[in-house]
């Protein structure tokens, strides 16, 4: 129900036909979000017949959920109003200046005990303090505690200062006032499942993406969005992973990252490469030599193959005559199974890590390419614009490496079968094309070769682009059609 209400508020204009691996979203500036917020406030203010300050405080108290606020307010207006920290005495039209009192008799502020203060302030609860204490208090709350509800300073008083009051005390400190407004907007954005703040440091843009706001939608789409403030501000609307993790969905990407982070694989290695001394249980790695083991710790002598005491081997030195006995066979099976699972994981992990590493080296590649582009201009009569094909190719390689990286995470979890084979065929084609293009980019420049190189690189770039699109599109379609089968349980799949 709540979801529908939000959808009505923020209709995202459809940008016509888009590719199946792209998602509709809208980038909003802080001002645009403020307008959305203002619309909600005006809506509530109109329905309840209260001023906007009050409507805003009510909405903040209910985490901007209009439906629940209306429901609760209709049920018991007085109780909601007082819980939200609004004085019931406040006349509904007190849009005037915050109450500023200049008393005639000497006033001693109960906080700073300064009797020379002439300017005092209070909320409608009449708890009066001097203006400088109010300023210090509000500044500390906003800047240190990131608090947007500035409560009355009196003990046990739960009244919240309305925005007009906050504004009047922060009149001379616009940075703190701006911070306060930003906190309110951030609260609004955080409360609305259709909105997300751009995670890049100090970026104030917001992205609205209603089609990825529910958890169930994340099983079929990868909501990669960009906030619009800068081309690099690309992030996933559905999860906190940095950058673009297409084509793999959030749940699988998260699982993979967790697996890579966990040292469960270290334990796996220990399991497949070591054994415990049968007497003192110390972990032993056999790194060479014969089967006659002597534990360094307890001096126990045993056979590495059957784990039995060496003494039972009698005269069959250096070869265990129990090798084919059932116990020995079972132990070997268990060990090779664990080794196989480790090797499978490493197969995917190494390829994943390779692309990740290449992406990290991209800055170097860009500067190297730039030098080459300059060189080309000198050795041939190509102009700056004409050598841009090199940069374009590097851009494309970077993009495809990102896609390839995540395809390994996906393939690790895909269940064996035709679908997986097709997926890996597409993956292989892209991989091969990317490596070919990378090699071309690294090839030395000779004046007479430049025209052919240019032709080759341009053609290859187009081809790589095409292959990348095929991988992204086919994977995205697979999610929409429910074609992918996993070899473990994945969030959102049965």
């Amino acid at each position, binding site marked *: 129900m709540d979801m529908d209400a939000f959808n009505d508020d923020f209709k995202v204009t459809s940008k016509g036909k888009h590719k199946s691996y792209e998602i509709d979203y809208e980038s909003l500036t802080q001002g645009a979000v403020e307008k959305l917020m203002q619309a909600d406030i005006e809506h509530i203010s109109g329905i309840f017949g209260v001023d906007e300050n009050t409507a805003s405080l009510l909405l903040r108290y209910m985490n901007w959920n209009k439906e629940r606020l209306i429901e609760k307010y209709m049920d018991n207006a007085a109780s909601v109003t007082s819980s939200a920290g609004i004085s019931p005495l406040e006349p509904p039209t007190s849009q005037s200046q915050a109450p500023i009192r200049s008393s005639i008799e000497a006033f001693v502020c*109960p*906080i*700073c*005990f*300064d009797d020379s203060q002439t300017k005092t302030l209070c909320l409608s609860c009449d*708890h009066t*303090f001097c203006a400088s*204490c109010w300023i*210090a*208090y509000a500044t*500390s709350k906003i800047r240190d505690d990131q608090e947007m509800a500035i409560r009355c*300073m*009196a*003990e*046990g*008083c739960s009244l919240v200062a309305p925005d007009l009051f906050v504004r009047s005390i922060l009149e001379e400190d616009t940075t703190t006032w701006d911070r306060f407004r930003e906190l309110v907007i951030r609260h609004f954005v955080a409360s609305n499942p259709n909105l997300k703040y751009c995670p890049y440091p100090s970026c104030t843009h917001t992205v609205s993406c209603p089609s990825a706001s529910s958890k169930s939608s994340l099983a079929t789409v990868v909501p990669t969005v960009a906030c619009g403030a800068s081309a690099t501000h690309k992030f996933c609307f559905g999860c906190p992973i940095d950058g673009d993790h297409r084509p793999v969905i959030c749940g699988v990407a998260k699982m993979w990252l967790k697996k890579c982070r966990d040292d469960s694989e270290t334990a796996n290695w220990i399991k497949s490469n070591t054994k415990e001394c049968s007497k003192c249980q110390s972990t032993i790695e056999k790194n060479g030599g014969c089967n006659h083991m002597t534990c360094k710790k307890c001096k126990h002598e045993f056979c590495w193959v059957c784990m039995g005491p060496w003494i039972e081997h009698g005269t069959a030195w250096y070869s265990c005559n129990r090798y084919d006995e059932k116990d020995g066979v079972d132990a070997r099976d268990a060990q090779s199974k664990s080794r196989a699972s480790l090797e499978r994981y490493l197969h995917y992990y190494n390829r994943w890590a390779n692309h990740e590493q290449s992406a990290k080296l991209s800055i170097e590649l860009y500067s190297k390419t730039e030098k080459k582009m300059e060189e080309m201009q000198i050795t041939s009569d190509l102009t700056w614009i004409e050598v841009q094909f090199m940069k374009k190719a590097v851009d494309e390689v970077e993009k495809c490496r990102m896609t390839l990286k995540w395809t390994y995470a996906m393939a690790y979890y895909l269940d064996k079968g035709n679908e997986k084979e097709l997926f890996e065929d597409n993956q292989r084609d892209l991989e091969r094309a990317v490596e070919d293009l990378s090699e071309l980019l690294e090839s030395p420049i000779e004046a007479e070769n430049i025209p052919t190189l240019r032709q080759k690189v341009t053609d290859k770039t187009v081809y790589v682009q095409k292959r990348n699109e095929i991988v992204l599109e086919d994977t995205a379609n697979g999610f929409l059609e429910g074609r992918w089968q996993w070899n473990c349980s994945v969030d959102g799949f049965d």
Partner: protein
Amino acid sequence: MASISSRRLQKELKEIKTEGCPVGITLLEAENFDKWLFSIEVMGESQYQGEAYTLMFRFPPMYPIESPAVQFVVDQTHQSPVHPHVYSNGHICASILGTDWSPVLSVVSVCVTLQSMLASCKKKERPPDNDQYVSRAPDNPKKTRFHYDDDTV
């Protein structure tokens, strides 16, 4: 900003010196505006009859906008009272020292609150998580996020 706390503390100190402290509370040391010591004794019938404890106040520069750091002194000669809200390292779990702090509260009013907290105690015991907390507690009790779960004692 230090001027706020020093002016306010000056005034509080003057008041303590002219009007005195409530019964059972004595100022032990107030040589500067960073740290004050008080002695607290519970008057009348209580679990803590005849026992005196030392309370330490440390003031941040933004006092009283920010709450002071308050704890019982624990060293070779001092102990903290055995109380369900007082840890053996002297840290106190009381909401007025944290989220419920109000700038209108004062040093004396905190002393009185803590005195009555001791007075209303029915059974001398440590908080259930005492050992766990004390082993990892920060030096300044303000760095701990207490969970105020019981306001009957």
